[in-house]
């Protein structure tokens, strides 16, 4: 069976030693010895990210660079452009689509040292940051001032803002606040020829020309490299409440989510966990009620308003045959529940050693139907699929469990991926809601959009990056 995952294994191509030496010599004009490395031990650590095991491209990058300024990045990209060397920007390497994997060798830019908050404008509610700052670190700084950045992924402990912008990440609060594209106001971008541009505006509204910022958000490092990011920020809510409702049938939980999202209740999170996810987390030692499925609803805002909306959510839950309904009010209770939600993936690894984590989304009203498809795929292939995710925006993460030591299970897992994506597209969905196309989902791009649309994407890519040096082989396969 042909699969985009299997395809990746076969790739090999690297620069020759002479070219690497010349490149190193040229970048040493503006980078110190500690700011770049050709060492094998270092380079080997940049071969992979969190992508499923069989997306191991096994291509070594030739050079790793840790810049500290935009100018260094600009100079670096200029040299790379002149020498036609691939440039792969990398945040924390916590993406699961292979977006930061160096398929054609080249130079990996690790933004770990570019992690400063350059300005915090409390009146205009904006924050200028460098791309390497970690989401939780930024929110820690913002919290002290009474603000927060709402769209953060479950991996916020390590994921960087640059990575999130590159993937248009979302997270559980997207149902109310939207994904990163709604929070990026301006970008400083190093173009593939090394020039630096600024996109966007400092104003809340702008109808001025093409929206290059939206083009760059979610471009996965294929069109340029971000070096400064101006973000909107939001005042911290006065009150947060978390309601959990248990169900005998996940379709009831889904129907409740659909009703919530079509009401004016405005939850800040609507998360779902299926039976297998719940059991895995319970076995992992996190306290959750034993049931078929759980819906977690977060409400934030003014206390008096939140309490009123909470009662309406509670009634909606009971209308949809919820068994137990509990409300967490303290920070400890809320953190404990989110801990359960965040520990699903490692908990599942305890059941089967390997997982393929999908990131499909459908219009929310189609979510119950998507669950029916998932159940059927699991039964038809006789393979475990644990499903959880941000059902409030129709975004589910079916985790396919298998053991890579068993070829039959690998075959089934790959087939399940295809069937899930096909089912999603048949329900007007998208094959990735917040993780990105990267390497893993390229062949579905055309199925999702159509030939002409992908051709336009190719034209945009070539117009901005004619030498195809920016994160090649990601999103699009120009050579094919």
């Amino acid at each position, binding site marked *: 069976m042909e699969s985009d995952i299997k395809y990746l294994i076969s790739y090999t191509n690297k620069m020759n030693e002479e070219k690497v030496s010349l490149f190193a010599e040229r970048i040493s004009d503006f980078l110190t010895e500690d700011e770049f490395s050709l060492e094998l*031990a270092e380079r*080997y650590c940049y071969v*992979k990210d969190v992508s499923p095991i069989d997306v191991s491209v096994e291509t070594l990058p030739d050079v790793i660079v840790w810049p500290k300024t935009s100018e260094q990045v600009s100079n670096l990209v200029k040299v790379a452009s002149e020498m036609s060397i691939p440039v792969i920007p990398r945040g924390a390497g916590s993406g699961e689509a292979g977006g930061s994997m160096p398929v054609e060798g080249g130079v990996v830019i690790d933004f*770990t040292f570019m992690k400063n908050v350059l300005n915090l404008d409390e009146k205009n509610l904006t924050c200028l940051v460098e791309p390497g700052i*970690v989401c939780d670190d930024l929110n820690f700084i913002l919290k002290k001032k009474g603000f927060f950045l709402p769209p953060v992924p479950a991996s916020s*402990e390590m994921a960087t803002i640059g990575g999130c912008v590159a993937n248009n990440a979302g997270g559980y609060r997207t149902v109310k606040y939207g994904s990163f594209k709604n929070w990026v106001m301006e970008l400083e971008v190093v173009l593939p020829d090394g020039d630096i541009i600024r996109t966007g505006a400092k104003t809340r509204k702008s109808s001025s020309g093409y929206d290059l910022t939206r083009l760059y958000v979610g471009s996965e490092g294929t069109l340029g490299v971000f070096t400064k990011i101006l973000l909107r920020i939001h005042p911290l809510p006065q009150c947060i409440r978390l309601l959990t409702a248990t169900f005998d049938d996940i379709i009831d939980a889904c129907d409740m989510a659909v009703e919530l999202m079509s009401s004016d209740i405005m939850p800040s999170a609507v998360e779902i966990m299926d039976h297998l996810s719940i059991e895995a987390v319970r076995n992992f030692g996190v306290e959750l009620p034993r049931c078929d499925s759980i819906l977690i609803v977060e409400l934030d805002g003014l206390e008096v308003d939140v309490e009123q909306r909470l009662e309406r959510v509670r009634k909606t839950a009971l209308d949809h045959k919820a068994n137990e309904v509990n409300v967490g009010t303290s920070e400890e209770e809320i953190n404990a529940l989110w801990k359960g939600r965040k520990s699903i993936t*490692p908990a599942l690894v305890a059941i089967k050693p390997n997982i393929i984590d999908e990131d499909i989304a459908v219009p929310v009203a189609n979510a119950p139907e998507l669950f029916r498809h998932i159940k059927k795929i699991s039964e038809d292939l006789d393979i475990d699929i644990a499903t959880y995710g941000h059902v409030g925006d129709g975004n589910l993460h079916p985790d396919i469990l298998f053991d890579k030591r068993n070829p039959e299970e690998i075959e089934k897992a790959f087939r399940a991926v295809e069937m899930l994506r096909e089912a999603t597209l048949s329900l007007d969905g998208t094959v990735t809601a917040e993780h990105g196309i990267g390497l893993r989902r390229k062949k579905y791009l055309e199925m999702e959009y159509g030939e002409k649309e992908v051709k336009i994407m190719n034209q945009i890519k070539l117009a901005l990056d004619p030498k195809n040096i920016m994160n090649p082989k990601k999103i699009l396969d120009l050579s094919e």
Partner: protein
Amino acid sequence: MVQFNEDIQEELIKCTHCGTCRSICTTFAYKGKESYNSRGRIFLLEGLQERKIGFDKGVIDRIYSCSMCKACELLCPSSVKFTDMMKCVRNQLAAEHVGPLVNHEEMASLIDDSGNIFGEPQRLVDLSPEVEKLPDKAPNLLYLGCTVSAFQPSLAKTTIKILREAGYNFTMMKDGEYCCSSFLDLVGLGQNYEAAMETNLRRLNSLGVSNVVTLCPFCYGAFNELSEKTRSIGSQHTTEILSDLVKKGKIDLKKSFDHTVTYFDPCHLGRYRGMYEVPRELIKSVPGIEYVDMIRNREKSMCCGGAIRVPYYDIRSGMSEMIVKDAYESGAEYIITACPSCLHNLSTVSFEYDIEVMNIEDLIAYSMNV
């Protein structure tokens, strides 16, 4: 080429490469490079396991520059027992003569020759006239550890004075201590460690000791393991004893220490042994103290890099400086710690900030006015 044993392979399989360890690993926080993070080190072990890379200088360097602080373990969503795994790896490398580093072998030789890991043997009777006055045999033994006996005589004298003033019945290894060798255990010389503890057990038995009190959390861990193994000898850290003596009214903390202080959790007392609150309560019992916690405290505290000081002095200094900076930004005038090694490491960089480093015994002695 090393074929990793099943225990190591089990832990490698558990890792999902999520990178959560990036948020807590202190060597990574200082170096900022993936290979100095736990996930990076796991990538390298996987590469070795799969025969994709070999034991070159860089790989060896990353294996031994992990400070074994256990921080990543406490945060790891997949419960990878990283420190145990690294110890296992280092033991296997030692068995197959790939490791440890030359410096580690030199330390083992120094212990063999002198009983002290720095090659600085010290007759404790020469340290203080107070030692002569101690009984030859007693139920409790104060064990100073190599750092204190060789380089911190003042801390040794202070601790002896406190315990004598409090009427605590104890003795010491008057002719000199034999290194607990827990450091050698961390670098993969487990057999040396076992042998050292057998030597110590014989000595303890000959002195009629049933409880060992240590200043150093490394030694505390070693004697705790001995205690778990033999069931005949107990083990306590000085903070536990001092806390107990304060509660019993044997120690009178009368003199006020009017400063803002913070406590730095030594890895081998905190994450290794779960002791976070005893030292804090003891510090807070000193009158006049205003206590603040650092941003990273208790199980999330950083590591000072003591376990990799040799040969990675630069990384140690960088790691220690991050702690001093955190303490400084928390508003503390003093960092109190409960580990002679942390005291040494933090002191080497604290001069750059307007902050003092002090071991907890010195604080107690000040307040007792001894």
